[in-house]
């Protein structure tokens, strides 16, 4: 745990005022208590929300006078009308009694139809409440305000995640709303041990962030590390979980992602059950999962839904493809320019034939084509759907065929680049695949300069880097290095579920038993049960 300790030293103790740190005084004295006078309160609040046309101040002249403040568009106005603005709401206030606190109580009783209600007493809490899509009720003669949850903003429904499609498995995906997302997790893990810790990050944006884990299964060191790192973040606004990822990752300059992200609640829940920690950020469907290992980058969600034999086969296909994605272009360049002896004679003849008259050296050719391929991919992503087909036509025709026919590039290079492209898309986690697409270029340059020697040096450097990499104190290459035999069941193969009995020894808490032993199905050999 040396690394964790050394990390801790780095914590900046600049600001002990951690979460929900106050705005740098935007308005007069935010921490002020509410006054008993409604007029003063309203004045203060109107000054705070100066030039904010979406803030509605709705005063109801009843006895006592009531002021409702909310943000237009974030509030369920139908319910608001029904519950609060019905004419008889404030009529029943008994007069003659010591009204000041009782009025509050009664309103509170009336508001029973609203699920979440709390009473606050500072200006700060009031503004906070308004900004977080609540309605705030101020009653004349009271120095307390009522914050009632009436969220009713437009939100996207639960849809199948576009980036992570599966053939078998649940089809729901996270949405931009934190509460819906936590509910998706809660629906899958109905245990009081599932903990959802909320914090607010972003001094201006005030974004809700939730740390989700299962008590007892999670490793306390990892959990503590997550809390520490997240609490260290100070920034103006968090718009996506990527904002947080960059602050809490271990090696910011590594090409490999050390934090997994997903849109799928089933992946999050599976990870939680393994002892990992999920970080949910409001306003984005992408959830961060830590710690990540190298091998999770190569596992798809269906691996665990399909039968183990098939999955094992697919994993081997995937492992070969990811090597191809990294090495094929550089191998081609190295072999055809440095080590022609290693190419089978007939292949060499056909390569040499197709290179006849090509103006560029093989290395430049490969670099050019790889560059074009990346360009096509990038253009294809950004294109509006209507233009998308144009890109593929231009790509296939111009680059695939015309370039070869014109003798500008040779056919083998096109084949190599296309194979590499397909192979790189076979890596299930998109951001993990990008690491490989990136590394292809240095490898290509090494191969063009130094041949096989360069490739081998590159692979060695890569392995050295990977072995040193950690994700939240957990070695990136585990369970291969350090070797954990139990964990290998889910790396080289995908062992049947009944045989994967233990959780990871490196990043799970006290409760390491995943599945009790001895559940292998036994064939009855035709015998019938009595």
């Amino acid at each position, binding site marked *: 745990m040396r690394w964790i300790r050394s990390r801790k030293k780095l914590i900046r103790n600049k600001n002990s005022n951690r979460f929900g740190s106050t705005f740098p005084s935007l308005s007069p004295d935010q921490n002020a208590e509410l006054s008993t006078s409604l007029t003063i309160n309203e004045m203060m609040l109107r000054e705070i929300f100066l030039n904010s046309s979406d803030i509605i101040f709705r005063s109801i002249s009843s006895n006592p006078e009531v002021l409702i403040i909310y943000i237009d568009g974030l509030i369920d106005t139908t319910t608001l009308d029904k519950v609060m603005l019905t004419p008889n709401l404030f009529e029943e206030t008994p007069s003659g009694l010591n009204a000041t606190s009782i009025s509050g109580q009664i309103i509170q009783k009336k508001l029973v139809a609203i699920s979440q209600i709390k009473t606050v007493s500072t200006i700060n809490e009031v503004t906070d409440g308004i900004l977080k899509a609540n309605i705030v009720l101020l009653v004349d003669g009271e120095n307390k305000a009522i914050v009632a949850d009436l969220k009713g903003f437009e939100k996207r429904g639960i849809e199948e995640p576009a980036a992570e499609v599966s053939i078998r498995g649940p089809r729901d995906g996270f949405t931009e709303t934190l509460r819906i997302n936590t509910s998706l997790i809660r629906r899958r893990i109905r245990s009081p041990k599932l903990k959802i810790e909320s914090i607010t990050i972003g001094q201006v944006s005030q974004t809700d962030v939730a740390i989700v884990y299962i008590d007892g299964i999670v490793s306390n060191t990892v959990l503590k590390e997550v809390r520490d790192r997240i609490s260290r973040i100070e920034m103006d606004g968090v718009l996506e979980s990527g904002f947080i990822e960059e602050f809490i990752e271990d090696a910011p300059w590594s090409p490999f992602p050390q934090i997994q992200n997903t849109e799928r609640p089933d992946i999050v829940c599976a990870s939680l059950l393994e002892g990992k920690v999920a970080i949910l950020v409001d306003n984005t469907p992408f959830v961060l999962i830590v710690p990540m290992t190298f091998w999770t980058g190569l596992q798809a969600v269906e691996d665990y839904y399909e039968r183990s034999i098939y999955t094992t086969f697919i994993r081997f296909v995937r492992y070969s493809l990811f090597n191809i994605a990294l090495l094929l272009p550089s191998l081609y360049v190295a072999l055809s320019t440095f080590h022609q*002896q290693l190419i089978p004679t007939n292949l060499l003849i056909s390569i040499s*034939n197709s290179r*006849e008259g090509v103006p560029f050296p*093989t290395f430049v050719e490969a670099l050019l084509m790889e560059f074009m391929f990346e360009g096509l991919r990038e253009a294809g992503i950004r294109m509006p759907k209507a233009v998308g087909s144009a890109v593929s036509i231009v790509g296939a025709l111009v680059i695939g065929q015309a370039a070869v026919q014109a003798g500008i590039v040779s056919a083998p290079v096109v084949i190599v680049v296309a194979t590499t492209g397909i192979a790189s898309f076979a890596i299930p986690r998109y951001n993990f695949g990008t690491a490989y697409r990136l590394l292809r270029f240095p490898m290509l340059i090494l191969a063009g300069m130094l041949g096989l020697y360069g490739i081998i040096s590159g692979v060695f450097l890569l392995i050295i880097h990977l072995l040193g990499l950690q994700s939240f104190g957990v070695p990136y290459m585990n369970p291969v290095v350090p070797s954990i035999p139990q964990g290998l069941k889910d790396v080289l193969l995908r062992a049947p579920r009944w045989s994967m009995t233990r959780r990871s020894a490196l990043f799970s808490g006290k409760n390491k038993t995943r599945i009790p032993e001895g559940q292998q199905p036994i064939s009855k050999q035709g015998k019938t049960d009595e």
Partner: protein
Amino acid sequence: MISLILSLTFVSGCWDNSEVNEIAIELAWGIDKAENKKIMISAQAILPMRISGGQESISGESKNKPFFVVSGNGMNTLDAVQQMQTKLSRQVFRGHRRVIVIGESMARQGVKEVFDTYTRDPNLKLRTDIFIVRGGTAKNFLEKSYPLENISALGVLGEYGQMGTPVEMGLLNFLHAATSDGACPVVPAIAIGMDTKSQDQDNQNEQTNSDKEGFRLAGAGIFNKDLKLVGYLNAEESRAMQWVTGNLNKLTVPATIPHEGGNVSIILYRMHSKIQPDIQSGKLKILVTLTGKGAIRENNTRLDLTQTNNISVVQNALEHHVEEAVLRTITKVQKKYGTDVFGFSSTIKRKNLTLWKSIRNDWEEEFREAEISVNANITVRRIGVTGPALQLKASEIEK
């Protein structure tokens, strides 16, 4: 500093790279004698454009050979290559060489002086086969086209492989034999042309001009300890020789069945040989045991092979035939050339070192005088799908 290191990476490295279209790939290589004690090197360089350039060249007229032969003279091999290079726009690339052919006159003069470069140069591979052009020059051979293969030199490899001997071992075996104490190298021979009528003559000088295309295996050339060609074995003898040395994987043996007036053919596989040296009253005796299992694929006799006694008749006849043929070969080599091409010396050395030490100094004499007996042991494992030949009447079949 960083830019220095970077520039170091960029300027270095590229010294030995070459694009595939800047090299002349040669697959076959010929060594010939030239005047003034020089040697002539010929190379069959391929023209990739003529080989796999798509449909238009496949219809290929035989006049446009997909290769051309270029040669150069020189004091030694590399000198000749340098001269050869003056005629080539692309660098000679020897890493893919599959075949080395040696002209007969060169072989008779001896190849001891020219063979060093084939193992010294790291760009060359050891897995190369060597052939002797019987009655011709290597250049002559390289210029021939071969109907089945684009690159004619690969045709000879195919022919050799079909004989049932391990390919790509030629150079290695040659060097093994050349460096060992007693053994003499033996190299398969090829003759130009596909007409086989004068094949069995030992000194076959001129080809009939009737067949200019193609070439055939024509036995094997025997070298003596000075790596000079001394003579040839014909095809049958060379197969017998390969069986004794244990380098044969398959062989078809035809044999006449005595008292039957017919013959059978067996295709042998799992062939082994065992050499047992012995010394009896001061005379070297060598017993060669050859074993093989096979399937009968032709039966031109009246025997019903489903009967076990008939099988043993056939087996005996086959064994007799093999013993005779092999013994004849060994005796021929023994008496005529006195070169141990069968690997007897290394077997003696391995099995009986003291005996070997006592005879190694006059091994050639011992080999000439040795009493050699051959014992064949052939097992018929399969007889095909019928017992007797189907065209026979029931009365003609011999049970």
